[in-house]
């Protein structure tokens, strides 16, 4: 169908309304020819026998009633190929690196289909990121979706890059391929990522999609879907283990809200559309492992919490979909601790299936639980000390208070290039747990105390 319609009746924000068309499919891809010869692309949002509404990706600037609209008869597809590795593409999949167009091995609908839950394999392969607060207390596994909840001005980009550099499955030689999707980040931030990718050689095994802050907001709705489509293709057709970094989910949600407002929809909480949960799920759920296929898609997204508020709809809805979250804390950052990850509100839901004997080490869960319990109590005690002074604390409480400091200083704090093995992480854990009286280690089975506690181990 190559017929061109010049029946635009209304242009409003990113939306264009047309009349008197042949029947047009819902979600169909549209090209728009402007009078000045440029073309734009869009997608059908609403179609009826009388009227069609089109959402224009590159913005409606320059459009008028003279513009011609062509319906392509198909939904948005991404040309995919193994040669995408090493390429830098725009937020809508066009090459930005001056290289040739991708010669497609296949063309895949970017919306993806939902994975049959029956085909899923429960993720359980431990990924070592070399960061203790993740490996030790919030373990990541292959096929998981674990976002970083951060705030403006915090070093989430550095943490993400460190993970992209260091992530590996111990005992396996396969590297991760990285699919990086930038949504509305500044060109400075994008540069930072690109330089690091180039410096470390990671770019060769990466596919980069860039939608920057000055690119049209509507395009942001497509960028992560392009990235995930590429990731799924590499994982399930080429048996690769893919780490997807989406940044920043908050910008994506802002674009979603912008579109909802333009469509005059009934808004939900804080003006975000009521379907934001479903929409975010259609991104996050595209992670996993399929029975009988080798590859996997692991998602590590970055989300900046507006006002550091974890109950804001964006982190809140994300937290209900993702399998945990890594929370970056302003307080720890101010103390000069890197990585400033606060383990207390952080969580990895799949941790239990990825750790233990044969995967990491038999004492892993007990050690993690014990540190959580002691650190949580220690932090509470800090509040108390501020009121009554340290002397008013019992001996037991003083020990726990000291533990909290040790925990931050020795377990949380590490170098930007320090790649700790899981053994290192657990040994650090024991070295600080050993500072507590043994009777306080109620979460740890006696046999592990005998086996790993420095006081017994050396004997």
């Amino acid at each position, binding site marked *: 169908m190559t017929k061109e319609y010049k029946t635009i009746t209304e242009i409003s924000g990113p939306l264009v309304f047309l009349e008197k068309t042949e029947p047009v*499919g819902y979600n169909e891809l549209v090209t728009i020819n402007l009078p000045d010869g440029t073309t734009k692309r869009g997608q059908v949002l609403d179609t009826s026998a009388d009227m069609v509404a089109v959402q224009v990706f590159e913005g409606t600037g320059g459009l008028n009633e003279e513009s011609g609209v062509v319906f392509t008869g198909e939904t948005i597809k991404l040309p995919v190929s193994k040669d995408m590795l090493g390429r830098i593409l725009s937020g809508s999949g066009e090459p930005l690196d001056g290289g040739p167009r991708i010669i497609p091995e296949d063309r895949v609908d970017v919306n993806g289909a939902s994975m049959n839950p029956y085909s899923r394999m429960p993720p359980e392969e431990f990924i070592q990121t070399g960061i203790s607060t993740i490996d030790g207390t919030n373990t990541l596994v292959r096929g998981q979706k674990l976002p970083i909840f951060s705030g403006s001005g915090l070093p989430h980009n550095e943490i993400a890059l460190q993970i992209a550099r260091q992530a590996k499955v111990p005992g396996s030689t396969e590297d991760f391929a990285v699919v990086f999707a930038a949504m509305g980040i500044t060109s400075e931030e994008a540069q930072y990522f690109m330089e690091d990718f180039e410096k470390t050689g990671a770019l060769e095994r990466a596919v980069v999609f860039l939608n920057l802050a000055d690119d049209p907001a509507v395009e942001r709705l497509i960028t992560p879907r392009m990235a995930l489509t590429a990731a799924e293709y590499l994982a399930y057709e080429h048996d690769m283990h893919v780490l997807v970094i989406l940044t920043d989910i908050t910008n994506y949600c802002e674009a979603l809200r912008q579109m909802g407002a333009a469509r005059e929809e009934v*808004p939900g909480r804080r003006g975000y559309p009521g379907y934001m*949960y479903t929409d975010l799920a259609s991104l996050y759920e595209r992670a996993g492992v399929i029975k009988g296929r080798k590859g996997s898609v692991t998602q590590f997204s970055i989300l900046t919490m507006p006002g550091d508020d974890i*109950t804001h709809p964006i982190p809140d809805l994300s937290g209900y979909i993702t399998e945990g979250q890594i929370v970056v804390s302003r307080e720890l950052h101010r103390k000069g601790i890197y990585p400033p990850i606060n383990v207390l509100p952080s969580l990895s839901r799949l941790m239990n299936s990825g750790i233990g004997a044969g995967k990491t080490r038999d004492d892993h869960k007990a050690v993690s639980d014990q540190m959580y*319990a002691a650190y949580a109590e220690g932090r509470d005690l800090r509040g108390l000390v501020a009121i009554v002074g340290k002397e008013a604390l019992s001996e037991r409480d003083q020990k726990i208070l000291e533990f909290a400091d040790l925990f931050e200083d020795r377990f949380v704090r590490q170098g930007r290039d320090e790649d700790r093995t899981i053994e290192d992480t657990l040994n650090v854990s024991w070295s600080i747990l050993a500072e507590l009286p043994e009777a306080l280690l109620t979460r740890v089975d006696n046999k592990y105390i005998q086996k790993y506690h420095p006081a017994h181990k050396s004997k």
Partner: protein
Amino acid sequence: MKGEIYRVAGPVVTIRGIKPKMYDVVQVGHEGLMGEVIRIEGDKATVQVYEDTAGIKPGEPVVNTGMSLSVELGPGLLESIYDGIQRPLMVLQEKMGDFIQRGVTANGLSREKVWEFRPTAKKGDSVKGGDVIGLVQETENIEHKIMVPPTISGTISEIKAGKFKVDEIICVLENGTQLSMMQKWPVRKPRPVGKKLMPNKPLITGQRILDGLFPVAKGGTAAIPGPFGSGKTVTQQQLAKWSDTDIVVYIGCGERGNEMADVLNEFPELQDPKTGRPLMERTVLIANTSNMPVAAREASVYTGITIAEYYRDMGYDVSLMADSTSRWAEAMREISSRLEEMPGEEGYPAYLSARLSEFYERAGYVRTLEGQEGSITVIGAVSPPGGDFSEPVTQNTLRIVKVFWALDAKLAQRRHFPSINWLTSYSLYTQGLSGWFGENVAPDWVTLRDNAMDLLQQEAELQEIVQLVGSDALPEDQQLVLEICRMLREYFLQQNAFHPVDTYCPFDKQYKLLKAISKYGEMATAALEAGVPMKDILSLESKDELAKVKFEENFQDALDAVLTKMDKEFAQLGGK
């Protein structure tokens, strides 16, 4: 009569040219996507479509099936995993691979599988709706009772025995009605019962804080609200694993795919503590994950409860877990907003409260049409945005349910699991079940429990003082209360769902644990009064050892050893 599509906007499609009834199922477009009529306006009707509508065009044909959305009920439901409209996910995988494509239909019950039917009624018997006419051994422990559909009655003129497929005729009535082992029932209509009775037996879950402090009755309703990461799903799964019901229906409504994969992986391997058989053999799973079509998510809870009612009608105790009802409410909101309905609170439709209460009201302890007793216990997870319990779904749910298990993010952060807050949770069944507990657990159980609750309440008040002045400033008897409460929290309330022994705690063990803590409390109080220094009482080895007995495989011996030691240690402390 043939109709056509007029308009497509996401999952909401407007059709014209046919005159359907409300809630009729229609087939939309060339691919025959399944949808349900949810509004009629003049010559147009609005349909919510259960599958993705990308590429569907105005003008494509629409066919009315004239039926409302129904499920197939009969042998073969158990061990199945369905999507929200009862399509078996295993069959979908065979037909279209690892990703769900649209336009594929699949029967809820296999038409190939042959079942051995043993009639229990005979020719000449007069039967009415709900009467059992024969039996099928569905799994090792579950006898599937083949019942006359609720709306049918008559005299049997012919009944067969032997091996049949679910849609073959096994019984004919004199009025000519032919019965097979399968019946269909519209999901939005509750199946009739003889009479609703008062629930008076507890649902034993093997979870100490639930059974011990906030029990739910068989046939009761409970809600588990909590912010993300507080352990809703783990609690729901623990209930699905260990509840002492005959049948479990687990609805994953708009939740994570990996969680359902986990259930599918684990349930065939776990043993039902009552029968020793794999848990999967008593389970029906419904998985409509968050990225599957939203209209099918809306339908999934109805599909689940209808299956639960069917087993209840056989006289079984059924428990149904819906994880999460908030996602269901959001599906309603999404569809309502596409219909441009006037929104109520926070964009939810004004009928939210009515829908929630209709759903929970399908729970209950009942006398079935045949005169047996059966029950459905409904446990709904709620996911309040930002963990704020004042939002509409939580509030409307709390107005209906009798048990409230409040999950607390603070407890979860310090790895106190299950992170159910003992101060804000409640159960309205506690009184009604006291008699049962007194008879079946121990005469002093109710007193023990009330004392424990009382202490925990005292602890909360003392903690406020401690926050200001530190615990050393408290008098010794109050310090002792704090210590006993710490024991209650750590030794009794905390339970490790991932520990092979601790994951399920029989009632007898719960009683003995609580009794042991209370014994320490009594002896310590006595010792303190006798002038023994607090420090000595707190440093007893037996007290610390009591922490670990719950993990022991040989619980009784371990407990006895600790209690003997405790007696000895207290004797040594002496006092005046």
